[in-house]
């Protein structure tokens, strides 16, 4: 099911939380939603799940409008809200049954789905406990289980891995990736590494507008421009190495890297590649290379660049 967000605007009082936001997510795509606090991520997710109506614009989920046909849209969405609210006094199993029934899972399938969810989300030992008694990580799993219980075609996860330990984070990421192959997933996060690891596409929004959109590689390339290599060379003389590197025809800039001896950051000219030239140079001079690595722009840098202004 495709999600089409078409020029939505949502204001709270005088403040515009979302400002003519438009994007489209295709089936089988995992979209990572990034942005600083208060950028409008949660508001957009609430609008897609029919909890809030946008002031202007429309959202289509599988061709159905969230404002005109919310009951039908909601049947196809699994939603894990921020902070993961749950009925504290309910046992896990009862809560899952309640969710399944409300989502319209056929009666004969409810049991099967609950067993499946308990298995997928690793809740076997906790299934008869009251939700209040669970640790944060297990509550998060219950939240995920209720979102997945009716096998939804669209999954909206608002910061799904908060409060989980590193092992659980890896498990949940794997799960999201697996689910994302057949379904449409939108997830928001503050953790850039997580978005990079799980998402096919990243959308960065700031002040209610899209500031960057693309695959992680595309975004990096967009921000980076020229190739940068980190070179470390042994048994040579510092100034000689510097001027030799600088005189290579493909190299635009050479910088010393502080702290590590004989280590340089070499920036190539536009659309040029200097690795081979550096290698040949060292062979000729009889130096040996102990390090030659491309420096990738981190997603953090991209994020900072597009959201700071």
């Amino acid at each position, binding site marked *: 099911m495709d999600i089409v967000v078409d020029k939505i605007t*949502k*204001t709270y009082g005088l403040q515009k939380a979302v400002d003519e936001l438009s994007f489209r997510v295709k089936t089988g795509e995992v979209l990572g939603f990034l942005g600083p606090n208060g950028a409008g991520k949660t508001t957009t997710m*609430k609008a897609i*799940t*029919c*909890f*809030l*109506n946008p*002031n202007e614009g429309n959202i289509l989920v599988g061709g159905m409008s969230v404002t005109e046909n919310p*009951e*039908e849209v*909601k*049947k196809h*969405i699994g*939603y894990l*809200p921020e*902070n993961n*609210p*749950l*009925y*504290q*006094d*309910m046992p896990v199993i*009862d809560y899952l049954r*309640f*969710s399944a*029934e*409300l*989502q*319209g899972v056929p009666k004969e399938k409810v049991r099967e789905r609950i067993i499946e969810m308990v298995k997928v989300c690793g809740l076997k030992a906790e299934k008869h406990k009251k939700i209040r008694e669970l640790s944060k990580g297990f509550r998060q799993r219950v939240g995920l289980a*209720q979102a997945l219980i009716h096998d939804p075609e669209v999954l909206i996860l608002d910061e799904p891995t908060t409060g989980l330990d590193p092992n659980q984070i890896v498990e949940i990421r794997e799960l999201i990736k697996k689910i994302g192959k057949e379904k449409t997933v939108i997830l928001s996060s503050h953790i850039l590494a997580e978005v990079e690891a799980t998402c096919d596409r990243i959308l960065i929004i700031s002040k209610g507008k899209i500031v960057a959109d693309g695959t992680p590689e595309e975004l990096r390339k967009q921000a980076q421009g020229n190739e940068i290599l980190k070179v470390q060379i042994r048994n040579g003389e510092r100034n000689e190495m510097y001027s030799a590197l600088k005189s290579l025809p493909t190299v635009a800039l050479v910088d010393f890297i502080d702290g590590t001896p004989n280590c340089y950051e070499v920036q190539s000219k536009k659309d040029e590649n200097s690795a081979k030239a550096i290698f040949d140079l060292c062979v000729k001079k009889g130096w040996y290379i102990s390090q030659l690595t491309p420096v990738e722009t981190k997603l953090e840098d991209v994020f900072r660049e597009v959201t700071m202004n």
Partner: protein
Amino acid sequence: MKQIGIITKRELQAIFDSLMAYITIIVFLGLSGFFTWLYGGDVFFVGQASMQSFFGIAYWTFFFFIPALTMKLIAEEKKTGTLEILLTKPVTDWQIIWGKFLATLLLIIIALALTLPYYITIWNIGPIDHGAVWTGYLGLILMSSAYISIGIFTSSITNNQIVAFLLALCIGIFFHIIFGILAASISGVPGSIFNYLSLSTHYESISRGVVDSKDIIYFLSIIFLGLIGSEAVLAKRNIN
């Protein structure tokens, strides 16, 4: 209908899983039993087999109990955020409100059903006006429904349960006695308006055995106003 049933079931489960249901029922039976059978001794001294003294007491006990039952219904869900979960499932605002309303009403009906032994006991003492007993129960159910709907409304406008409780009592007390007192002390058209607004007028005529469509309409209008108000408050999140 199915969605309403699922929500009602969950609410009842929540009420019976906590001690709330049992405390409510026990305290209600204790209070109404004590005042009906022991204190004052109306039942034995009135000279006829009648449930009037029980209905008089239940009228007051429910007045205090119902806000305590309804205060958490929406306020708590708002506070913990579970309302968001509920509203993003395929249910409408109306279904949620009706589900919660029916769950509370069912608890009241269970409590009332447990007072049926009173009825049977009095029936054994002497000839009883069966019609008046049944309309008395009907009156209590209608009155409870009215207070439940007021309680759900006050619970929907705040996320603080105590505020919801006190507000429900405040609104309730007007219907319960203040309009009656005003009606007695003011003459003319305003007086008759207050008399019509007073819940006790309608309750008394029903519990005496007179079921008038006017009284039924009165109770139904309070119920619907309360529920429409709650729905409007829930829908307000979308008013821009």
